[in-house]
């Protein structure tokens, strides 16, 4: 099933919850195409994509969280083993209080992907079984992948920057 057909099916099934989809770019056939979904519908859409045999997006490759300054976008990149397709489901979240329901129940791997997004972007995942920081230390301040993130000058007395040798020595 092509991406456009998939989008059409999703729109038919979920109506307004599907906000739109990426357009194909003739000059760049390799681009990732995503369908934009309202945050509250993410779990249903993902479950539909995962469970429907004609779609069968059985693998969640990654959850890319991006800080677009006015909103935070999560892109659930998924693959279908049976149909050899790649697509993304994208959600736009409020930047101040980003929150979305977890998709852990659909793909177990979402557990860690969501933890990483929580850690690096501060997105809260409702219903997540173990929402802790994954890569940064537990007592780290801030979410590093936010565009306005400023690193603290030190962490427990360890300086986070090194002075530059060039031009000095």
């Amino acid at each position, binding site marked *: 099933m092509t991406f456009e057909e998939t989008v059409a099916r999703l729109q038919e099934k979920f109506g307004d919850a599907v906000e739109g989809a*990426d357009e194909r*770019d003739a*000059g*760049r*056939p*390799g*681009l*990732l195409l*995503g369908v934009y979904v309202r945050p509250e519908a993410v779990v249903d859409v993902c479950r539909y994509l995962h469970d429907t045999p004609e779609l069968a997006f*059985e*693998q*969640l*490759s*990654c959850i*890319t*969280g*991006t*800080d677009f300054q006015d909103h935070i976008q999560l*892109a659930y*990149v998924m*693959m279908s*083993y049976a149909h*050899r397709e*790649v697509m*993304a489901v994208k959600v736009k979240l409020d930047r101040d209080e980003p929150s979305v329901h977890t998709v852990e129940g659909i*793909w*177990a*791997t979402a*557990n*860690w992907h969501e933890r990483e997004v929580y850690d*690096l972007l501060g997105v809260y995942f409702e219903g997540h079984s173990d929402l802790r*920081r*994954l*890569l*940064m*230390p537990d007592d780290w301040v801030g979410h*590093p*992948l936010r*565009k306005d993130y400023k690193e603290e000058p030190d962490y427990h007395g360890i300086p986070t920057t090194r002075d530059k040798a060039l031009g000095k020595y």
Partner: protein
Amino acid sequence: MDSTQSKQSVSDDLMILNMGPQHPSTHGVIRFIITGDGEVMQRAVPHVGYLHRGIEKLAEGMPYPSFVPFTDRVDYLAAMFANHGYALAVERLLGLEVPRRAEYLRVIVSELNRIASHLIGVGAMAMDIGAFTPFLHGIREREKLNDIIEELCGARLTYNYVRVGGVAFDIPAGLDRKILSFLDTFEPLMEEFNRLITVNEILVKRCANVAIIDAETAKSYGLVGPNLRGSGVDWDLRRDLPYSAYPEFDFKVCVGRGVRGTLGDAYDRFVVRVEEMMESVKILRQALAGIPEGDIMAKVPRKLKPPKGEAYAAVESARGELGYHVISDGKDKPYRVKIRAGSFTATSIIEHASKGLMIADLVVLIASLDVIAPEIDR
């Protein structure tokens, strides 16, 4: 104190064991909190992040081509794939066509690198089971590969070879013959390696029926590459979502068959890696025979400014799908680079798969997943 209470306190008395971050078999710096009853674990919870260098954040601050050397550090055992994936993603953003010769060279270096990485993978697994010699036999062959790759691109580990639009260097004169003669000796030496360790009854007993991951669990946890194929899922990005010159080659996708135990056990993952090396040899022979003449680099402007858009490019690395999700905002620096690494999901399955294993089996499980710490943390 009444008897039921004391009984309960005895049965609840589990040992918490901290394995790592410095431990001989954690393959880098990973830490596991093992809850166990003596030798039998109830679970092992991985704690990662010790090698988190913020490569994704670094990418946002530099021009597109400058990020390639950083991808080397994503997976230091198979840096070609990391280069390749990133280059592919940016090429897709640009809509760039890569010369055929460059695609062939990419395949050649990728397969050489896959052999090198798998040699470490299976060797380290044997070492974690207690046999030190196979590891060094693997290292021996990898050393020859390192020499070949060094001659090609000047570095042994952090290649920075595959660039946006092509590859950095053409193959020097005589190197193709060198690779072929390496392959000629590699095949019998791999058979010898198999006699030394792969069929060894102790190794088989240690790995077969240990840490079984069935196909459903493997898919759900997003396992990729040899780990996924070890669980019996026939999925290889080289064949199924073809990129580069792979559609032109004839090779078999090695899938676990439960050779000596249950499908999806540690031994299947071991065997899949060993068989994949032989398939790589096949691809290499075809690629070297059919390498076309031509440019090695597409016409790429000095300053790359891909138009707005998102691209996801995944290559079948030695550790499975290594995906780059690059988002461009039309400027000369990537707006966001997300790296999806095979080891990341492989580590996440450890907590699930380690239930009821023994401590010695946990070591086998970690080794059989072939996780590598910098790829988890990036």
